[in-house]
């Protein structure tokens, strides 16, 4: 379970939001809706331990009962999927997945299986730049999950895709999250995205509406 407790974030001029308190259960996909500039992406960055310069943050974050808000980003075990696929352009598709996977002798086999599940059979040696937007998005999710995170944050993950591809990709992403039974937080403006979530939070200044 991912728990946020009394989280407040401020710029030097104003309070962005808070205090916020909520939990996300294992396998639950929580949607987060808020107006532009309300600080939802900042909240995600705080959860990752990467608050931008000039902002001050308070509050606690726990994952499966372990307090993690003072740990560095690389020790939090929280995965991230961004609006842009952010694939590493100097690595092949397989290289991107290998980067995320813990070392093991059967990595090549696992990568082949993952790509097959994602409908990207035989894409191992492809240059990420030659993939379509939808294909890049799939590889990005596979990469995020290949690191075996204990929670997943998704920042506008579907907004760069066209509407048809968006629904299909969203369903596939949500299936993958449910299969792995990890808590996930999805930031989105899109009503369809939010309707598919287990719950939706509306970030509204100091309070959260469920």
């Amino acid at each position, binding site marked *: 379970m991912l728990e946020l407790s009394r989280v407040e974030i401020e710029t030097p001029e104003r309070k962005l939001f808070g205090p916020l308190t909520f939990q996300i259960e294992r396998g639950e996909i929580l949607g987060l809706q808020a107006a532009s500039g309300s600080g939802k992406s900042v909240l995600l*960055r705080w959860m*990752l331990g*990467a608050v*931008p*310069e*000039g902002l001050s943050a308070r509050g606690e974050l726990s994952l499966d009962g372990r307090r993690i808000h003072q740990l*560095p*980003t*690389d*020790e*939090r*075990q*929280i*995965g*991230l999927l*961004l609006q*842009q696929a*952010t694939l*590493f*352009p*100097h*690595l092949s598709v397989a*290289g991107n997945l*290998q*980067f*995320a*996977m*813990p*070392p*093991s002798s059967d*990595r090549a086999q696992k990568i082949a299986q993952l790509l097959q599940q994602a409908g990207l059979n035989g894409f191992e040696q492809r240059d990420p730049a030659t993939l379509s937007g939808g294909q890049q998005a799939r590889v990005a999710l596979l*990469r*995020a999950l290949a*690191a075996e*995170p204990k929670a997943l944050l998704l920042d506008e993950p579907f907004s760069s895709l066209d509407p048809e591809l968006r629904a299909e990709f969203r369903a596939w992403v949500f299936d993958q999250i449910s299969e792995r039974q990890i808590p996930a937080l999805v930031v989105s403006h899109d009503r369809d995205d939010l309707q598919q979530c287990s719950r939706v939070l509306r970030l509204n200044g100091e309070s959260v509406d469920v």
Partner: protein
Amino acid sequence: MSLRLLGVAALLISLTLYLPVITLFAPFWELELLYLWAELFKATEFGPALAATLVSTLASLAVALGLSYLLMGALVFTPAYQRFARQLPLLLAVPHLAFAAGLYLLLSPKGWLERLVAPMDVGIWVQDGYGLSLAVALGIKESWFLCWMIWAQLQQSSLADQFLVAQCQGYQRGQIVRQILVPQLLPKLRWPLLAVAAYSLSSVEMAWVLGPTHPPTLAVLAWNWMLDPMVEQRDLGMALTLLLMVLMLALSLTIWQLPRVFSGIVPSGRRRVGRLRIGLPAKRLLFMLHLILGLLILLWSFTHSWFYPALLPGRWSLNAWQSLAVEPLLNTLSLGLVSALLAIALVLLVLEAGIKQTGWILLPLFLPVLPLVVGQYQISLFVGMPPNWSAVLLAHLLWVLPYVYLVLKPAYLALPHEQLLTARTLGLNQTDLFMRVKLPLLLRPICAAFALGFSVSLAQYLPTIFIGAGRVETLTTETLSRFAGGDKRLLGAQAMALLAVALLAYMLAQRLPHIVYAKRRAMH
């Protein structure tokens, strides 16, 4: 006259200034090179000078790369990173020669470090036979340039998001820098690395202060030989400048292949457990070193007597300052001011004319200085230009222009297209658009380009002394003659004047946008 025509005129003027690059090999046509090569290899100084040059150049590259890696590994994409980026121009503004003079006062026999540990004899020396102290000094100085280049690259890409994604996958900063940033940045850093290599290979002023003396590095040896009254020795000096170009070519080929070392690496997936935090202490140490060097220069400039092993001067005096001549200061200021402003005008006009192929402007950065100065000298003889202030100004422009271009071109290309288009729809013609929209938007990079151009002009030694035939004195030429004189008090005063002028120009350039646009936060 339209801006386009002015741009073409600026292009032609720049091309004329670049004649020494185009006629780089012309001075060697009349030499009997085969005979000279044989003579060169027989010269007793040649072997050790070549070894010292190769060691100091390669080691300085390694130090510069290593420090940049450490600093960027510790700072990149942290809140401290933006602060560091803001400090970089200040560090870049410190003249190489002032830095070298400070290191000399710190590390030379009976220098401040030896005084600090006295009576222990630690055998601290500069001017070692392999040029290692020179390499470290060059490496530190050039690491700021590389960090600045890296910072510029990081501004233009999605690397920040890639960095965060890799952190989320459990990787530490150092691992991400090595596995994600270096393979992507190194191909783009080849040109800056070539510039570092060219400077290290052909630096005369730093090598003179910190490098080996008997024999010196190849660049200094070539310079000494070219000043020799005997024609045979001068020809040998010319042959050495040709050798410097061959060495530069070999270095360029090696640097060009460097990214390949990282291109085939397959990620192992291993996450490092322990943390090694040496980047931030290294940064603090280097900042402290700069501060100590500045203080040492200042202390020596006010010294009357400072006996070994005292840590502070015994008696103070203004004598060293009173001995400074005004003319070198005026020459330095006027050459720096005019060359930087001229270079800014030429670069902006060339860019505004929409001329696509402008990369050649950077060429002088990747070539050893000495052959270029020889080319400039030959051309000035050919056109009958007297060795005066104007000739030195034109000579300085060959190096000021590329650095100004390096700052202005990315800023010019990053001008917001939407705002420019909006201005056009409001009825502005090209000249109005340039004067009323582009120039105000470019004020900050223009000021940065001015600071850099000024400091490049300030640092020129070989073009000043060679093209000006020793008649145009600047703070740089005076600092080196004070160094040769051996009086540390005079060296301190002269180096302090050099440092002060460079820092003043930097501060002026830094403050100007704040003064002009005091109530426009986005313009600072």
